[in-house]
């Protein structure tokens, strides 16, 4: 398996609280991605990174921010969580022209 670890695996929190999800890779890939998975939508890209301190928005970036201070770590932050952000979040890594490999996902519930 590609060396990707997501933490936490599960989290329950309340509306309005900040939440940070972590993605850690041991593959030294330049590109990292955050997706969310919702019923009827498949996976949708939130943000991605193409290097340390280099990030850009994806399809559903509103309400999310990211940071990448080291090659191996890509953080996704919900500054003030809302119920609409209840979802399963996946981190992925991949090289140019290569299929992306995914972490095991984080199930986030916002009450």
């Amino acid at each position, binding site marked *: 398996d590609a060396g990707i670890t997501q933490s936490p695996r599960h989290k329950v929190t309340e509306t309005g609280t900040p939440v940070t999800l972590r993605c850690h890779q041991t593959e030294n890939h330049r590109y990292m*991605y955050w997706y969310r998975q919702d019923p009827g939508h*498949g996976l949708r890209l939130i943000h991605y990174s193409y290097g340390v301190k280099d990030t850009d928005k994806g399809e559903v970036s509103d309400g999310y921010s990211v940071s990448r201070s080291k090659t191996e770590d890509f953080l996704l932050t919900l500054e003030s969580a809302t119920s609409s952000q209840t979802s399963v979040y996946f981190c992925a890594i991949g090289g140019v022209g290569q299929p*992306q490999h995914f972490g095991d996902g984080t199930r986030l519930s916002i009450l």
Partner: protein
Amino acid sequence: AQTVTQSQPEMSVQEAETVTLSCTYDTSESNYYLFWYKQPPSRQMILVIRQEAYKQQNATENRFSVNFQKAAKSFSLKISDSQLGDTAMYFCAFMNHGQGAQKLVFGQGTRLTINP
């Protein structure tokens, strides 16, 4: 923007049967990649098969094969001799060819159940 459509939300077949999952996509690009991912109840996203648009030959991985029709923008997955372990959600995905970060665009998924 590219879009991917999977028109079959759910499918169910008997063990050992052959099943075909449909996927269509829309793009103005001529060179790109297509993938099928499998997501079993464990929630892992597992790459099943990959197709490069400039290759006319259909990709095959053991019991899994694709029917890639570039002009029709169709990319179906055929599972032969289906097994109970094939029960999962299946996602079709599109990725542009080129340099830089390459984002995946997913279809909505097809839930496949293999019955004993």
